[in-house]
């Protein structure tokens, strides 16, 4: 069966520090991968999605970036965090068929001090 791992679960970082959140998927090949951000009590904002290694689409201009160095690995990064980067970050995967749902990781709660 397929599983998705996302870590860390919680992260507290100072303003201006770098960020690296990692997401890996097991049990499937060539998945679509996604990064979302969720503000408290709000909906999900799609940040990045990838349909293959090295293929990244950015949905929202910001100081975040994403990379997909391996088929089932998706990394969210920043060189310098801002206070506004605080939030709950979710990674998701789906098969390459739009009738299939996305499956989400457990999320990372990021607090910027």
């Amino acid at each position: 069966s397929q599983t998705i791992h996302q870590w860390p679960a919680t992260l507290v970082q100072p303003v201006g520090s770098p960020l690296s959140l990692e997401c890996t998927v097991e049990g499937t090949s060539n998945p679509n991968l996604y990064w979302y951000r969720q503000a408290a009590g709000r909906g999900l904002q799609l940040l990045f999605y990838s349909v293959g290694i090295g293929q990244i689409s950015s949905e929202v201009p910001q100081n975040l970036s994403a990379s997909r160095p391996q088929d089932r690995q998706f990394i969210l990064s920043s060189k310098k965090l801002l206070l506004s980067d605080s939030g709950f970050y979710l990674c998701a995967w789906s098969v390459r068929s739009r009738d299939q749902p996305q499956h989400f990781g457990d999320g990372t709660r990021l607090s910027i001090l």
Partner: protein
Amino acid sequence: AQTVTQSQPEMSVQEAETVTLSCTYDTSESDYYLFWYKQPPSRQMILVIRQEAYKQQNATENRFSVNFQKAAKSFSLKISDSQLGDAAMYFCAYVGTSGSRLTFGEGTQLTVNP
């Protein structure tokens, strides 16, 4: 661009009763898929139910069913025999011909009262 609107930020229901959560969407496409996701306090996103736009029959999953009105672009979720474990934030989501992007509504926070 497609948009998804959930007009009820909060809803409450008594245990064992029925509640309906509203969702409307705006699209010019005729072929698309709609989903309801549940996010409990643990913040995991859990798929509740899925509807194909080309199917007239409303999807059903145990106590969860949808009322899909394609002409009205409405996709409501009905929860029957509500249980305490149904308390969560519920999100309606749309995917169109792009195939890669889910558009989410802002969510409805459901409280189940014992």
